[in-house]
């Protein structure tokens, strides 16, 4: 590229802003497709199956494992202050406010997000989307909208399942391994967790992450170059972009939730 480093920086910045605008326009198009009939219930169910049901084993397994690790780490830290009775609270709060939505989000990006980008990209390169256009069917409405909506819908459900399994994982460690009283684990957990501060924040984060993922993964697939190498590149970049935005939004929501 020509020009001084400053000129190039300026050009990159304006390209980035332009890309941002395109993504916003795409998101708007998806939103208007959602409210336009037909409902596409059949396809939506299939997408929820692909994005949600097929991720369950991964999410619940990961949730349980993370919960166990939190239980272990939490215990060894709290025991230094003689505060091991609060293990339930620590495990629960960390899972509900942060790890539930964030880890679930990253896992879903890797599994369902990349699959979505790859599938749409493959449809672009085999002219399936052009085929739909020639049949006067809007590919955004037929293909993109059900996939994006499914990701949005599935995220809070998966995040909650992750969290529940995580709490249980921490319980198993706390009670079986370390010998805490199960009742006080649950009691400290129930006392510490509040719906408005914690659970609602968790659900809002998960839903926002789902929306982000839905838009980014479908956008990358839709705009993918129509050949195998291009699809592969789009898929990788979708995972990276979605992950970065997820972590950024996580910080923003966390910071502004208390305000």
């Amino acid at each position, binding site marked *: 590229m020509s020009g001084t480093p400053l000129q190039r920086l300026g050009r990159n910045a304006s390209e980035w802003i332009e890309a941002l605008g395109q993504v916003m326009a795409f998101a708007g198009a998806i939103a208007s497709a959602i409210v336009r009939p037909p409902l596409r219930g059949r396809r939506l169910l299939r997408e*929820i*199956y692909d994005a*949600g049901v097929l991720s369950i084993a991964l999410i619940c397994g990961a949730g349980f494992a993370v919960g166990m690790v939190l239980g272990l780490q939490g215990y060894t830290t709290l025991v230094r202050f003689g505060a091991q009775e*609060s293990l339930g609270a620590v495990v629960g709060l960390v899972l*509900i406010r942060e790890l539930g939505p964030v880890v679930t989000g990253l896992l879903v990006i890797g599994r369902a997000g990349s699959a979505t980008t790859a599938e749409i990209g493959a449809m672009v390169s085999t002219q399936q989307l052009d085929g739909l256009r020639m049949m006067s069917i809007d590919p955004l409405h037929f293909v993109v909208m059900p996939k994006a909506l499914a990701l949005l819908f599935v995220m809070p459900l998966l995040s909650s*399942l992750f969290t*529940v399994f995580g709490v249980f994982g921490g319980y198993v460690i706390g009670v079986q391994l370390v010998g805490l009283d199960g009742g006080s684990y649950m009691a400290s957990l129930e006392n510490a967790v*509040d719906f408005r501060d914690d*659970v609602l924040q968790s659900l809002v984060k998960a839903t926002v992450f789902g929306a982000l993922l839905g838009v980014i993964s479908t956008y990358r697939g839709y705009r993918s170059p129509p050949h195998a190498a291009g699809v592969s590149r789009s898929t990788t970049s979708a995972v990276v972009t979605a992950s970065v935005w997820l972590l950024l939004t996580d910080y923003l929501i966390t910071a502004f939730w208390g305000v």
Partner: protein
Amino acid sequence: MQSSATRDFIVGLFVLAGLLAVAYLSTVLGGLSYRGDGSFRLVAIFDDIGGLSQRSPVKIAGVKVGQVAEIALDEDLRARVALDLDARLELPVDSSAAIRTAGLLGDQFVSLEPGAEDELLAPGEFFTYTESALSLDKLVGRLVHGDAFGDE
């Protein structure tokens, strides 16, 4: 597309499981039920609330009956704590509210002791008898200076 009837059923199960998880987190853990229907509010004034915070539990005989709704400073610069309590509670006018600690380094909560009078506290009324949070350094100070520790 394989058998869509079984697949739809599985999707339904998945959504149900997810919603149950959400519900569990919201009500059992989050204490969602103490908001909204059937709670009534009483107020207690303390000199020192210690580590008490919003949504700290309120207990009678160790059983949770409500939570702290609001903490503010009143005109006398004392802590004004509003409590959201289960609507079924009937507390006599001479009941007392004390701030206690669960365990040595545990969370603080408001412990209520019912009084003996016949007349009951109505919504919005104040507790006559309150006991502030005990702070360790004040206790030590009193011990050193030979004061007894007691209530107002």
